[in-house]
């Protein structure tokens, strides 16, 4: 096995021993099924806890399964991305601060192999957790509302995965710049929030922004097709992920010292 493979396996074993492989999918699943369940019980909840005068009749239109799933994704847009950032932020900084990085790099591991193994291992874990939780949400939606077409589920899953990868790559990149995980999380979340904000403030000029993956995925679910700017967004997200990744590798190469 080459160094990339060794480091990749080490990341997965580490996540298993840290129980990250347990809490990450569990937290994501809870987050995902919250939407269909709470929407389903909304009338009862309003009735019991709404403090409405007796006799008030509430009529909430029953959402379609597609709308419920779109709602699930928008839940992910806030909390899910925070989980992504928090789970990735320390992966480089911790090894750097403890000094174990110097024992790795003295064995002539290239920065590309090191960052690449981190990226790949985190991507596998995050995307697998996300896919599992999303499919669970689809299952509940099918039980409580109606079955959503598989093509729409898979297409929205794919597009949204790109946004998760983007957030993860940003965090990994910030991880090569800073040594404190608080700062890494702060910078990453600020950048992601700024991008989302700009996209909603200047939709005309921000068609390329990867943050549009959220609205594109929702549109795909409810309408069956994304808007016209979807290809532009897909290409720019892929390019940005690659650019940030190689910038992180370049930044890592410029380290004066690994401890």
């Amino acid at each position, binding site marked *: 096995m080459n160094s990339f493979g*060794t480091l990749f396996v080490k990341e997965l074993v580490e996540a298993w021993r*840290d129980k990250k492989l347990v809490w990450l999918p569990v937290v994501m699943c809870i987050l995902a099924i919250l939407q269909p369940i709470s929407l389903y019980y909304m009338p009862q909840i309003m009735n019991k806890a709404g403090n409405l005068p007796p006799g008030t009749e509430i009529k909430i239109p029953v959402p379609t399964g597609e709308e419920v799933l779109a709602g699930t994704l928008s839940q992910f847009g806030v909390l899910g991305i925070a989980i992504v950032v928090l789970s990735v932020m320390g992966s480089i900084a911790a090894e750097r601060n403890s*000094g174990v990085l*110097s*024992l790795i790099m*003295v*064995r002539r591991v290239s920065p590309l192999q090191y960052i690449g193994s981190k990226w790949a291992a985190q991507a596998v874990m995050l995307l697998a957790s996300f896919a599992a939780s999303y499919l669970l949400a689809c299952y509940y939606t099918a039980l409580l509302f109606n079955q959503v077409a598989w093509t729409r589920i898979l297409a929205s899953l794919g597009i949204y995965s790109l946004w998760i990868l983007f957030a993860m790559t940003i965090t990994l990149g910030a991880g090569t710049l800073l040594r404190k995980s608080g700062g890494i999380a702060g910078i990453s979340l600020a950048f992601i929030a700024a991008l989302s904000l700009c996209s909603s403030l200047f939709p005309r000029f921000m068609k390329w922004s990867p943050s549009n993956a959220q609205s594109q995925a929702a549109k795909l679910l409810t309408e069956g097709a994304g808007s016209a700017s979807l290809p532009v967004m897909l290409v720019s997200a892929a390019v940005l992920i690659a650019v940030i990744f190689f910038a992180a590798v370049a930044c890592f190469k410029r380290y004066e010292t690994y401890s």
Partner: protein
Amino acid sequence: MLLEVEQLTKSYKNHTVVNGLTLGIEPNHCVALLGPNGAGKTTTLQMLAGLLKPTSGRIAFMDQLMEQHSIGYLPQYPSFFRWMTAREFLQFAGRLSRMPRSELADKSEEMLHFVGLKDAAGKRIGGFSGGMKQRLGLAQALLHDPKLLILDEPVSALDPSGRLDVLEMMKELKRSRTIVYSTHVLHDAEQVCDDIVMMKEGRALWSGPLDALKESHQDETFILSTSESLEGWIGTRDYVASFSLLSPSNAEIRLAHSDDRNRLLAECIDSGMTIKRFEEKSPSLEDVYREVIGA
């Protein structure tokens, strides 16, 4: 020469840590870097290990292959993954060094045995003491049979018995490898190393074989002890540059020239004295260190 260092310099924004260091390291020699704290020892070792880029200067390995895989490095405070066991870490390190799988299993057991961690091989590193981490650090540095071992303060963090163990290991290792290590325990350096590099403020003040270092600081001092009293008699010899009486019949004498030693002995015998001891006093490494560093 196994490796040559030329005008090696490392400077940060406002200070220079290593300043124009030039060294040559012979194969199968054990070289000790000595010097006060802040002399640039760790920085030099990190540059030799390829972990730190020099600001200027050159580190040339005579054998290009050697540069790739044949360095074993032990940092001053080795740190590992807390969740791994000692055995797992060695396997991980060995794979990163591209050791063949078949060889790796045997080799890591052998190393665990060598450093005395056989019983702790299956335990999590998170529960290791400082001494055990130091031993594991040595094991991972030796794992891939490097030609050059770079050890940063290998004994400073150890208890007396651990220190003895590691020194014994180093004595055994230096038969087939080049070892470069830093220390500020002079006694340990004297026991193990062949060559000495004394550093201060990023410069090498002295470098060369330990014997030559001591010889160059040999200053014609002798110890003479006799049955009779030396008081009075010794002061009348005009070739004695200075002397001090340790007891009436025991004197430490510094001579003006080395030829005078026989003259002193001859006159002792002529005066009918019984010589109990006559010996050239060789300086300890500590004496030389003080003189060179100026501490």
